C-alpha cells in the first residue's frame, strides 16, 4: 500500500506539475508552449486540444497538462493544423495511434453505442412518463 501511494504521488507530480527530480533533458517541442501566429488556426488547435486526453495524467486534457508527452501532442496538433489538416482528421490519426482513450469525444462504435442509445432511451422514457401523467390528470 505504501509504495502504491508513493507511486500515485509520483504520478500526480508528473502530471499536475513539472517533475522535480527527473528534469527532462530534451527541450520541449517548439509548438508545445508556443501558439500559432494565425489566431483562427490557434483557436481551432485549442478547441481540439481541449478534447484530447493527456495519456500520462488523470483526467486532464493535453491543453491543461505540463507533462512532456502532452507537450509533444500539442506540438503535433499545432503543426498539423498549421499545415491545413482538418481537426477531425487529426483526432482520427491520434485515435488510430493511441486508441479511443485519447479522445474525450466518443464516436459511435461497437464499444460506445450505449452512450448514445441510452440518451435516446431516456428521451423516450421521459416522454412516456410525462404523457401518461398528462393523460391521467387531464
Amino acid at each position, binding site marked *: 500500500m505504501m509504495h502504491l501511494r508513493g507511486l500515485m504521488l509520483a504520478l500526480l507530480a508528473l502530471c499536475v506539475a513539472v517533475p522535480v527530480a527527473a528534469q527532462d533533458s530534451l527541450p520541449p517541442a517548439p509548438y508545445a*508552449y508556443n501558439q500559432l501566429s494565425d489566431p483562427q488556426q490557434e483557436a481551432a488547435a485549442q478547441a481540439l486540444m481541449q478534447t484530447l486526453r493527456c495519456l500520462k495524467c*488523470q*483526467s*486532464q486534457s493535453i491543453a*491543461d497538462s505540463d507533462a512532456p508527452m502532452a507537450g509533444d501532442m500539442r506540438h503535433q496538433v499545432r503543426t498539423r493544423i498549421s499545415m491545413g489538416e482538418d481537426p477531425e482528421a487529426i483526432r482520427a490519426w491520434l485515435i488510430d495511434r493511441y486508441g479511443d482513450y*485519447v479522445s474525450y*469525444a466518443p464516436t459511435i462504435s461497437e464499444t460506445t453505442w450505449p*452512450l448514445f442509445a441510452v440518451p435516446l432511451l*431516456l428521451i423516450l422514457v*421521459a416522454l412516456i412518463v410525462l404523457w401518461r401523467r398528462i393523460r391521467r390528470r387531464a
Partner: protein
Amino acid sequence: MIAELGLAALWLAAALAALQLVAGAFAQRDGTTELAGLARPAAIIQGVLAAFSFLMLLILFAQTDLSVKLVAMNSHSAKPMIFKLSGAFGNHEGSMLLWITVMALAGALIAAAERRLPERTMMATLAAQAFVGLGFYAFLLFSSNPFERLPQPAMEGMGLNPLLQDIGLVFHPPTLYVGYVGLSVAFSFAVGALLTRQVTPDFARAMRPWVLGAWIFLTLGITAGSYWAYYELGWGGWWFWDPVENASLMPWLAATALLHSASVLAARDALRAWTIMLGVVAFSMSMVGTFLVRSGILTSVHAFAVDPERGTFILVLLSIYIGGALLLFALRAGTVSEGERFSVTSREAALVFNNVMLSAILGIVLLGTLYPLLTEAFDVRVSVGPPYFNPVGAIFVVPMLMVMAVGPLLRWRQDNIVRIRLPMLIAGGAALAVLLLVTVTTNIGILPLLGLALSAGLGIASFMPLRGRKLRLLPLATWGMVIAHFGIAVALFGMASESAFSEETLAAVEVGDQAEIGPWQVVLSEVRPTAGPNWTALEGRLLVSYKGGTSKEIDPQSRNFWAPPQETTESALVTRWNGQLYAVIGREAGDGRWQLRLWWKPFVTMIWYGGILIALGGVLALIGRLFADLKRRAVKLRGAERRGLSVRNVEPRDAGA
C-alpha cells in the same frame, strides 16, 4: 492514549447504533415498548461519541503524533496548523470518520428535534438511520481504522499533497460531506415512511428542512470545489466533467429534484411515491459518489485509497442499502397512492416535467461517469468528456430551463396559460433579442449562444413571481425561490460567457518585456525567489493594466514543496466586475525568457456568484420554512391546551405551505 480514546468512542458509538436499530425495530412490532424509549437517547449519545472520536483525531493531527499511522502518512511537523487540521480529513480514513460523524450528528438532531412525525414512523426512521450507520462503522473499524498505531513511531511525517494545502480545501470536504450525509436523513425518512406506509404532507414538511440543508451545503461545496480547481490547479478550467466532480454533481441533481418534489407533497399532497423514490435515489447517489472517490476505482487527485479490499467493502454496503431500499420501494410503492390530481397547465405539472428532466440529466451524468469504468473491466478504454456531456446534457437542460422560467408563475392544481402570457412574452422576447444580437455581432458556438439567451430570459422571468404581490408580505421561502432561480441564470451567464469569450495567450518573455491578452497589457518586471513554511518558489512580478489604465502588481508563483517533493503553480488573478485576468508563470526557456500563460475570462466570476446566490436562496427558504413550522407548532400547542388535550395526541392537520 488519545488515539485509544478515539477508537473506544468509535466502538461505543457503533454499539449504540446497534441498540438504536434494535429499539427502533422492536417499536414496529409491538408499539411503544420500554426498549423503544431507548432509540432517541441512543441516537443522541451516538452523535456525541462520534463527534468526540473525530475531535480526538483532530487533536492527534494538531499534535502531529507520529506514532499514529494515519498522522505519519499524511502529516508533517513543518505544516501550518490549519493544514495539519485539514489533513485529518484529507485522507481516506479521516474522511470516512468525518462522514460517520456528520451522519451520527444528523441522527442525533432528528432524535432530539423532530416531533411532527407519527411515533412509529419516527422509530422506523431512526432504525433505518442506525442500519445505514452500522455499515459505515463496520467499514471504519474493520478496514479503515484511523487510530491505528505504528509499531515504531515515525521520525517525520510523509506530508500532505501540496495541492490540498490550500484554504479552499480546508472547507470544501466538510461542506460537501455535510451535504452528502445530510441526504442520509432524507433516505431514512423515506425508508421509515415506506415501512409504516405513512406518506403525508407532514412527512414532506419534516423531511424538507433536511433536504434543503443538505442541498445548501452541496451547492456551496460544489461551488467552492469548482473555484478551487480553477485557481489552484492552474489551467484555468472550472469544470471538467471529471468523475470526482460528477460524484458531487449527481447527489445535487437528485437533491434538487427531491426538494421540489417534497414541496409539492407538502403543499398539495401529490407526488407521494415520486418523493419517496427521489429520497432513496439522492442518498444512493451520495453513496455512489463516495464509492467512486473512496474506492480508488478512479485514480485522480481525490482518490487516495488504492486498496481493492475497501472498494469491495463499500460496493457491498452500497448494494445492500440501495438494493434493499429499492426492493422495499418496489414492494410498497403500490400501496402508496399518488395523491391529489392536477391539470397539464399547473405548477405541479411544471415541477413534474422538471423533475423528469433532472432525473434524465442525472442518468446522463451517471452513464458518462460509469461507462468508461465498465468498458475498462473488459479491457476497452474509452474517455467520456465535455464533448459528450455538454451537448447530450443540453438536450434536457434547455427544455428544463424554459419550463423553470414559466413554472413559478403558474397556479397550483389548474391554471390557464393565457393568464401568464405577458410575463412569458417579456422573458421570451428578452431571450430572443439576446439570441439575435449575439448571432449578428459575434461568432460563437451554439451551446454558449443558447446559454446566453436562456440566461437573459430566465434572469428576467425569475423575478416575475414578485409581480403584483405585496413584497413586504411575501413569504421568505418565495424570496428564496426567486433568488435561487436568479442564481441559476447568473451562473449560466458566467458559464456561457467564459466558454464563448475567453482568450488565452502563451508568451515567452524576458524580464522587462510585455505581453498582451484581450484588453490587458502585462509586463514581467521581475522574477525573484521566495519561500514559505514548507516550500520555496520563484515568483514573477507582473505589472498589469486594463486598457492602458493604472497598473497593478500580481505575483504568480512556481512553488517547490519539499514534503512531499512536488512542484505546483500558484496562479495570480485580477478580478474586475467584468471578468478575471488569470496568470501562471512556467519555467525558464533556457534563453532568459520565462513562460507566461495568460487568460482573460469575461464574466467568469458570475459562475460562482451564481452558485452563492443559489445557496443563499436555499438559506432564505430554510429560515422561512423553519419559522413557519415553529409558528404552526405554537398554534397547535395553544389549540390543544384550549381543548385540554395532551399535545402528543393531536394529529397535525393544516392546509398547504
